[in-house]
């Protein structure tokens, strides 16, 4: 399943780079020396997926600055993400979910690990499969349950679905269905933060599919030009709905696209939650200190279909099962925690029990919420202090 990783590996020394640019600036405009390379591809693959040794189960990287407490918190978020989704599937099967359920099964480590590297004032804009990042940013499972069930107490009051909402205080800006659109929006968040003298960093998630959109390109190009601290996490999970990556793009690694924006990139093992954290931490530190935009490609795998209804007929036989058996992010992290004696099995069970309790409580709360009053549909298109709500007019009576 793993291929050999071949990358042009050229992390340029920043000072040399500056000197080069100065030298070039002294020359006549638009003249390029023949010795000057056409472009530099800067892809850091230190934490990219390694080829596993035969019959050796995968774990996580040893290179970490996280302490035991933080590692266990990461574990809690991984389990919370998986178990909230499992509960959503139960609710879906009970027909309590109004729309579809979108799973991140098998790729939870990417969302959780990357978001965990951010500071409270930083922003994220997730994709539908980044529930983990949303939970790390402090959104409660009850809000997610209420949203999926289209309840009045949900953050959008039933006006929009799943994680399509936001909380500016928590640094969470929900996505819209149009992939790529959030990249320019996040660029604007960072542009404003800079005007306000804040050292905010933002992570925008995108997938192998979303990277094909024009909005993705426009947003990232602008962020790169403005040297804004935007970290684009490209989740390479191999399918966009049913479309495999090779029908989406001609590049081999999504990280290659960074060269087109003149920004550095990382490739990280997206199923190694520790590696995801470490790479994002490094990228965030660099971005915060003026390094500009960066692209992180997280190699992972989507084990479920696009949504619960999808039978995955387009997936090769045995592929999902291979990933489940050999490369599950939760299994890998459990092995890491146990092997390094960071936790006992009992301790992990304790964490899971607490997570289940939280999910039970929050799910009951969400189920007890009423559905919204229909008339609420008319409110909040505009500030209703200025423009009246769009109530249904009575026929020939106005």
């Amino acid at each position: 399943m793993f291929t050999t990783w071949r990358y042009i590996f050229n992390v340029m020394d920043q000072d040399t780079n500056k000197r080069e640019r100065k030298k070039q600036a002294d020359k006549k405009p638009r003249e390029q020396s023949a010795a000057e390379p056409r472009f530099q591809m800067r892809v850091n693959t230190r934490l990219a997926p390694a080829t596993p040794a035969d019959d050796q189960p995968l774990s996580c990287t040893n290179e970490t600055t996280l302490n035991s407490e933080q590692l266990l918190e990461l574990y809690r978020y991984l389990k919370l993400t998986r178990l909230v989704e499992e509960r959503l599937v139960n609710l879906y099967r009970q027909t309590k979910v109004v729309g579809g359920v979108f799973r991140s099964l098998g790729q939870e480590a990417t969302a959780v690990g990357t978001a965990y590297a951010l500071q409270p004032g930083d922003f994220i804009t997730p994709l539908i499969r980044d529930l983990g990042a949303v939970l790390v940013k402090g959104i409660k499972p009850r809000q997610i349950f209420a949203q999926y069930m289209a309840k009045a107490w949900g953050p959008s009051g039933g006006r929009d679905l799943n994680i399509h909402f936001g909380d500016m205080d928590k640094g969470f800006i929900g996505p819209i269905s149009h992939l790529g659109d959030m990249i320019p929006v996040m660029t604007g968040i960072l542009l404003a933060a800079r005007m306000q003298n804040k050292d905010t960093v933002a992570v925008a998630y995108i997938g192998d599919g979303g990277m094909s959109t024009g909005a993705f390109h426009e947003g990232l190009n602008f962020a790169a030009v403005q040297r804004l601290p935007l970290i684009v996490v490209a989740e390479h999970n191999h399918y966009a709905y049913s479309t495999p990556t090779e029908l989406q793009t001609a590049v081999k690694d999504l990280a290659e696209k960074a060269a087109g924006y003149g920004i550095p990139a990382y490739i990280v093992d997206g199923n190694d939650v520790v590696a995801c954290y470490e790479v994002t931490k490094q990228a965030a530190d660099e971005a915060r200190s003026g390094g500009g935009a960066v692209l992180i490609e997280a190699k992972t795998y989507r084990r479920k279909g696009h949504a619960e209804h999808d039978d995955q007929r387009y997936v090769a036989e045995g592929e999902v099962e291979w990933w489940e058996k050999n490369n599950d992010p939760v299994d890998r992290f459990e092995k890491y925690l146990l092997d390094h004696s960071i936790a006992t099995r009992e301790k992990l069970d304790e964490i899971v029990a607490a997570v289940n309790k939280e999910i039970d409580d929050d799910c009951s709360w969400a189920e007890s919420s009423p559905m919204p009053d229909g008339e609420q549909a008319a409110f909040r298109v505009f500030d209703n202090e200025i423009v009246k709500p769009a109530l249904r007019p009575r026929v020939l009576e106005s």
Partner: protein
Amino acid sequence: MSTALKKEHKSARPERGGQATLVEAIRQGIWEEMERDPTVFVIGEDVGAYGGAFKVTDGLIDEFGKGRVVDTPISEGAIVGAACGAALMGMKPVAEFQFIDFISAGFDLLTNYAAKCRYRWGAGIPAVFRGPCGSGVRSGPFHSLNAEAFFLNTAGLKIVEPSTAYDAKGLIKAAIRDPDPVLYFEHKKLYRLPRLREELPSDDYIVEIGKARTVKEGRDLTIITFGAMVLTAIDAAEELEKEGLDIEIIDLRTLAPLDKDAILKSVKKTSKAILLHEASRTGGIGGELAAIIAEEAFEWLDAPIIRVASIDTPVPYSPPLEDYYLPQIKDVVEAARKLAAY
């Protein structure tokens, strides 16, 4: 590369009030709002050192610096998206489309993000999206658009279009202060039209969004219009006056949300209505106005509701073609005569 600019150029700070054309009025309005409120900033293509394709933002960069006058790549998606993001952060972006024709490249983010944000999760987008619209200046199919009908069917966007220098300044200031996204269309033919030069007050004023203006009172027939067609209506009314017809003219100024009260009040008074606009006829705002009048003022009508609009083609380039495309004074006069006969 040398950083010295080809031409030393520093644009004058605009007067507060005084004699102004429409373009000067908009520039005054933006300038004053940037002075008044440090969260207001300008973003768009060539808006900085060059001052914008039509010089609406001329001199802003000298006064307020690059931090508040942001030149962008040719990326309407980036402009609209970044304006939305900045607005969420409490800033008040004034985003420029170099020509309103290019609004199509930002359509997705405008209609799906800017328009729906407050509705979806209560986060208003206090941003202005402005740019030159309109035909009649021999600019062909891609620099002549009137885009209002694209957006009328999207809940969540306010649309304004001034036809006087006074309104241009008052509306841009109101748009900047508005808590929701406002599309601000500027008819490029009116920018420097000497006929529109007028004395502006020196005090701070706004023109309320959502309120139409009665350009001229009359008894016999109402022409409801906006933008450059207000002038066509005035000229037609003058001609019709010679024939003894007393025309009332309503300048909508705001196209969304429409000032239904003003529309209905006038039609109930004159009992006859011409809906005059520069965009193509089919699917244009005239159809919506006609429906409102038919539903809510049917008993007051003495004649059919007439639309006078451009024909259903792209905007052609060559003067004879464009003149045929656009509603002319004679078309309005002819329609009025027909209505007068009822």
